[in-house]
């Protein structure tokens, strides 16, 4: 009873937040996205998937959302975003439908291995996840890593700017300087 209550509260919360993500301005939508993550991680906890719940918080709410927040803050696109959201709605709906059909497909197929493997139920879920990830899905996992790597390189390339007058300092050169550079000189007059 208690668990069911918590489930319904979290589920409603996450759905409402998810809807608000679409219908609010840039920064607010990211904040709602964080709420979605938090409530979904609560749902994971209810299922007993502690590792997944924490990972969701760490990766999405922690790292990912920080980056997402920086974007609208730095670019200051609070106002323009809302107009374009309407224009891009067709695109959004298409992507949404696509994702939903993927989910439906997965639910229908139901991977057999997860159902049957007894060891997974017994062992804690870190070990279980590790075994699945590094055996069956090893290549996909590596591919994800590659995608992230490319993204990092792309970001760094975007940030490199040429032609700006910025003073660079070499740390080694800075530390090597000593107080001996000061010369004591006499400013004598002509006779001396």
């Amino acid at each position, binding site marked *: 009873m208690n668990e069911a209550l918590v489930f319904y509260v979290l589920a409603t919360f996450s759905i409402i937040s998810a809807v608000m993500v679409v219908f609010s301005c840039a920064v607010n939508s990211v904040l709602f996205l964080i709420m979605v993550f938090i409530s979904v991680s609560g749902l994971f906890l209810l299922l007993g998937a502690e590792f997944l719940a924490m990972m969701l918080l760490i990766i999405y709410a922690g790292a990912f959302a920080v980056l997402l927040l920086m974007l609208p803050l730095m670019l200051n*696109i609070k106002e323009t*975003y809302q107009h374009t959201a309407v224009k891009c709605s067709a695109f959004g709906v298409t992507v949404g439908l696509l994702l939903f059909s993927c989910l439906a497909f997965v639910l229908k197929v139901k991977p057999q291995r997860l159902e049957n493997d007894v060891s997974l139920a017994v062992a804690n879920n870190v070990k279980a996840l590790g075994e699945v990830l590094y055996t069956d899905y090893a290549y996909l996992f590596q591919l994800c890593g590659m995608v992230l790597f490319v993204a990092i390189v792309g970001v760094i390339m975007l940030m490199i700017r040429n032609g700006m007058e910025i003073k660079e*300092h070499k740390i080694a050169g800075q530390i090597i*300087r000593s107080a001996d*550079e*000061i010369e*004591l*000189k006499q400013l004598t007059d002509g006779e001396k």
Partner: protein
Amino acid sequence: MVRAVLKNSTLNTMQQTAGGGFFRLVLEVDGENILKATPHIGFSHFGIEKLIENKSYINAVSLLNQEYALVLAIEKLLKIKPSKRAAYIRVLLAELSRIMSHLQTVVSIAEGAGNSTPSYYGAAVQEKIMEFLELAGGSRLHANCLRVGGVYNDLSYGLMEDIVKWLKKDFLCFLDNIDEKLTEDRIFKQRTVGIGTVSSENAIEWGFSGANLRASGSLWDLRKAQPYDVYDELDFEIPIGKYGDCYSRYLVRMAEMRQSVNIILQIIEKIPEDFMIILDDTVATDNEKTVLSHSSKNIDEDYNVPAGQCYESTEAPSGEFGAYLVSDGSNRAYRCKIRTPSFAHLQAVPHVLKGNKIEDINTIISSLGIEAGEVDR
């Protein structure tokens, strides 16, 4: 499509200078880097020049090193010179307050780099110097002991011995301590070396003077080049920096403090015993009202200054401090323009800051020894 215009953001900041005054600095930044900096001054302007024009000469006094140039200019117009002992006392007090000022700059460079602990040690030392100035002149911060024709009074008995004892024992220890803790500190070096570099040519072009000019490598010191009072009789060396960055400016100031100690020790040896304020008796016959003796009655009376104009400059701690005096023969200055070093240095701040990081602003501004009150006058 989303079209965001990328604009550099501007920051409107209030900068605290080494001595505690404030001015406004508008920054245009790109991330961490300063693209443009515009100082706005005038927030502590109180019209000292107008006041000097409307007060008699005696009332136009301020901080010790600051009144020095004015006193010299008035003396030049009056064609008088202080007695040897008075001149030595002047130089001694000027060097003491130079130590105080350099110390303030040095600890505020450290504070700009994020370590405020040295400023507490510095405060104890400054307190001691202010005690000496109080014994010499009667007040702590505004020492107020220079007079036209000499000084306010002879140094009280035993004061010089106290100063020497303190300088030799405590102050040199303190300097060594700072050298040990700060000068060789890795992080301090990273915060000051190569920051705010000013080349020798630029330093001259941007109107630098004093320690900042010397840190850039120019051999120039008014105390030696155009000596006033008894500086030509004293033997001291001029520290010259190489690179003109914050670290050089810091080192030059540290070395100058040691030279000042050297100067004071020489003064104690050379100072003559007799105390008299006026030397040149001919002036007294020139103009009855300019009779200046050490009796306080005559000193506090007004005197007229012959008509004429002159420019006198002294080596104040932060640079060339000049006074351009126009007299019309009355007991008030017709025009007194005060040339402060900070005004010229602050004008160069936009050039120096350009391309540096936001975090370094404080280090750079304190290392230039800028004081907002001196800028505005």
